[in-house]
């Protein structure tokens, strides 16, 4: 007991102080020395990152079963569902690689955060319906022991899409499909629209569709952080680095009709560290391409698209970054608390933000006006010329507004048919895609993550059948068009 008391005193530094006064000079704190020694011992024990030559704690592990390229909401969603659906528990080692841990250019954080079921493709509607359920029960899915519950700040205000004369028939058939899939959407005539939202100018509107339940907007950061926290607790590793190379092996196979195909398999992923030439080869069994706007580049690294055009080898992944601007303005006379997320006939959209008559909005440019996606600089003239006239025409109160700020983000734009790509590549057999959602990736992320995890673990889609969104449609030329792109 006396020895224990002495140890306590030593820990508190009394003895140290006594020693120092005897020696006559100031010595470093005894507790600091003890903790340093403890750290050294811990790092030398097995399981620690200690390498006698240099510290490798920032490098990813040398082996991982699944490497997910891209740490945005889609990549994290795939990681979550892989860990949730795997049998037995802890069977799969997952590594998420993202080159920017601040997410400064990631589409997830820069998104306006809307979620809707008003799509024309039934698969999109089902994906969105499941994602809304996921958000509603987010604490059942993503709860971590001892951590506070998540609040995604969902605004259940619905989406209001307006259609002119020529779009009215399409809108009606879309709403029919949406209702069939179980979405709660209603159609409104211009008179009903004027009654319900007196601040709208219904000039030029032939029909409107309004989502009554399960549509609105939420905080994408909360979802991202919630997913991140949960999958870290499930044992998924994160690494900040850029994927620069895939080491693959090929094998020649013959199809049943005698045609020769070259199938590739990725064996290693080279992950390069930030601001250095250092890289780590990660041996893996599967690679999931969830790199968002840069998925095309990642696919090219794996050799997708390198071949004579018109063949399966030569079919590139048609996903490229497209810059979209979002403007934040204040309008004291603007529409009130009941404002839905409104998308005009011209493509301009806006929604409320908070209680203080602030609004967010923008417009997707036409093909000719596409801005250069090289950087995320905002073009304020675009608002003046292209967005404001349409907004002011539709909502007369917006004739006087003041833009407070603006930002830009990327769409992972699928130039083929503006719908996502999900599932394995036919030739590079262990690369799976979860990308290309062209502006509605955030709202479908939970469901897409589950679909990809099912594809990886079971070999087929179990809950929502996304076979129409496989890569092969690019080669076969089968467009799966989504007509309601905002």
């Amino acid at each position: 007991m006396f020895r224990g008391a002495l140890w306590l005193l030593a820990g508190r530094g009394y003895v140290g102080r006594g020693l120092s006064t005897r020696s006559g000079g100031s010595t470093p704190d005894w507790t600091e020395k003890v903790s340093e020694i403890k750290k050294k011992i811990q790092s030398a024990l097995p399981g620690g990152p200690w390498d006698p030559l240099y510290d490798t704690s920032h490098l990813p592990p040398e082996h991982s079963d699944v490497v997910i390229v891209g740490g945005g909401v889609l990549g994290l969603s795939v990681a979550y569902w892989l860990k949730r659906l795997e049998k037995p528990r802890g069977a799969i080692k997952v590594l998420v690689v993202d080159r920017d841990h601040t997410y400064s250019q990631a589409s997830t954080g820069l998104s306006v955060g809307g979620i809707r079921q008003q799509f024309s493709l039934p698969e999109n509607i089902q994906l969105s319906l499941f994602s809304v359920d996921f958000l509603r029960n987010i604490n059942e899915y993503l709860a971590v022991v001892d951590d506070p519950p998540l609040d995604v700040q969902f605004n259940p205000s619905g989406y209001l899409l307006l259609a002119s004369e020529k779009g009215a028939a399409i809108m009606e058939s879309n709403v029919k499909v949406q209702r069939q899939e179980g979405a709660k959407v209603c159609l409104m005539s211009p008179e009903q629209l004027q009654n319900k939202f007196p601040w709208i100018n219904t000039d030029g509107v032939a029909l409107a569709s309004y989502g009554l339940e399960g549509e609105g907007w939420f905080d994408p950061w909360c979802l991202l952080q919630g997913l991140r926290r949960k999958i870290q607790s499930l044992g998924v590793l994160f690494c900040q680095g850029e994927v620069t190379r895939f080491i693959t092996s090929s094998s020649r196979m013959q199809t049943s009709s005698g045609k020769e195909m070259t199938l590739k398999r990725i064996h290693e992923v080279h992950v390069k560290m930030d601001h250095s030439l250092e890289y780590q080869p990660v041996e893996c069994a599967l690679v999931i391409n969830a790199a968002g706007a840069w998925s095309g580049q990642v696919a090219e690294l794996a050799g997708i698209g390198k071949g004579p055009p018109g063949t399966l080898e030569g079919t590139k992944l048609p996903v490229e970054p497209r810059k979209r601007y979002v403007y934040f303005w204040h309008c004291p006379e603007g529409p009130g608390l009941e404002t839905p997320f409104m998308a005009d006939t011209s493509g301009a959209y806006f929604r409320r933000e908070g209680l203080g008559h602030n609004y967010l909005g923008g417009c997707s440019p036409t093909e000719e006006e596409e801005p250069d996606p090289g950087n995320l600089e905002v073009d304020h003239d675009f608002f003046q010329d292209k967005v404001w006239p349409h907004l002011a025409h539709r909502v007369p109160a917006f004739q006087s507004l003041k833009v407070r700020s603006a930002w830009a983000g990327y769409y992972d734009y699928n130039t083929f048919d503006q719908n996502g790509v999900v599932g394995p590549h036919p030739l590079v057999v262990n690369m799976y895609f979860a990308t290309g959602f062209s502006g509605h990736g955030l709202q479908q992320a939970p469901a897409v993550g589950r679909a990809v995890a099912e594809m990886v673990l079971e070999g087929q889609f179990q809950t929502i059948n996304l076979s129409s969104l496989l890569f092969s449609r690019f080669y076969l030329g089968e467009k799966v068009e989504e007509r309601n792109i905002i």
Partner: protein
Amino acid sequence: MGETTWRTETPVQQPASTARHSLHLVAPIWNLGTSGIRGLSSAVTPEGNQRKGRMLLQFLTDRFYDVEALRGYLFQKQVSKVHKENRFQGKEWIRSTEHGYSPLQLLSFQAVPIEAVDASDCAINYEGLDNLLALKELQSLLLQRCPHVDDWCLSRLHQLANSLQELSLAGCPRISERGLACLHHLQNLRRLDISDLPAVSNPGLTQILVEEMLPRCEVLGAEWAQGLKLGPEEQSRDTASPIPA
């Protein structure tokens, strides 16, 4: 049928004395509802400038047994009508027995539309609301202090838009201003209680915005002036010292 069940209660004694005494004896059986015994007598004999007529009637009642019997009969009919309005199809409130089961009579009322539901302090949640949303003639819904009612639940209430006139959400810990935004579907709402919502970030401003959103509705909630600070003139009057810059 109403009259017979009424008679199974304590029967009214009709003394040989004046009809005024019989009027008083009816009072204990009949509980709240109408304005009082005087109101009833005024229903039997019309008010206004008929004082002479009333005096004549009183004189006749005192004199003739037939007039008294007729007046008593008319009076009984009035009372039983009021009594019927205070009962449900001639019976008292149907209450569950001490073991918690409702009597089987409840099943016979399945076709009757429900007008008001008080689900205060109930642990009702999003899926549980299915039961309430099926009541297409619901006029009054009280969800005070329900711990699981949140913004998602409010987004489902649009299904009651045609009939709902009164809604109370006071004290629900999970409701925020985002859920209140979807109450604008309820255009028939006349009374809304949104007081004491801890998750609403700015109760005064929210109240103003909700009042603007539902112009025909009376909104009870936070006093919108409670969050405001005194202006500089008022402050100097109170403290009698210069305001620090």
